[in-house]
């Protein structure tokens, strides 16, 4: 069962998290599916978290792992972060590491021309 779905949107790859929780139970699967997407050649990624109501530190760590794997050659933008999940980003200062956008459309648009 895939926890991520992908879709080409302009020059970006929109990655949508389908599950409601990104936690320790699912963090390894998340990293593996992200790695598959990145290894298949995607470099401009938008991760849509609008279905996600809970992220723990394993889940957040899994996103950081994906960013590191992508490296400096790409971009990983995050969209649709709900307020409870945003707390996790701000408490850990990850809101300053990632570019966060209200919606996937906003994030896709910001990548145009890159």
């Amino acid at each position: 069962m895939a926890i991520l779905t992908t879709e080409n949107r302009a020059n970006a790859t929109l990655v949508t998290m389908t599950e409601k929780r990104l936690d320790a139970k699912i963090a390894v699967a998340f990293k593996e599916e992200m790695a598959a997407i990145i290894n298949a050649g995607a470099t401009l990624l938008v991760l849509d978290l609008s279905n996600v109501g809970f992220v723990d530190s394993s889940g957040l760590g899994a996103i950081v792992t994906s960013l590191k794997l992508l490296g400096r050659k790409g971009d990983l933008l995050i969209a649709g972060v709900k307020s409870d999940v945003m707390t996790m980003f701000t408490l850990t200062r990850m809101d300053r590491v990632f570019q966060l956008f209200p919606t996937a459309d906003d994030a896709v648009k910001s990548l145009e021309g890159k």
Partner: protein
Amino acid sequence: MPFVHLSGNGDFDHVRLLGVAVRAIAETALAPSDAAQLEIAVVEACNNIVEHAYANTKGIITVDIFLTDQKFVVNLRDTGKAMVDAHQIKDSTALDFDIDNLDDLPEGGFGMFLMDTIVDERKYFSENGINTLTLTKYIQP
């Protein structure tokens, strides 16, 4: 004083169920955003029990909730490996990274920091093979 006892196996499937249950109980006494944060603290504590105390062996996580007008207390117990020196594990280094240096970004180690940021008291003790972590959140009057 209301007191609710919860328990489940020490694995990530059960951590989820314990987490949502604690949050729902917390919502009866705390603001929704505080209850959401408390779920994070409890899930981090439970994840640590699964990863470090039980470290892939089997065991039970027990969660006792005490509720007064002044505080919401969550008592987590396990019978796994005790923490070596709970007081030495500081929260100070977890956030000590350069946000512009990709290689420096932490992929973990946020658990204790999150608990300390979210709750007002964290206490740990280990006795007769039972490890008890107590997380206390004060309730604003």
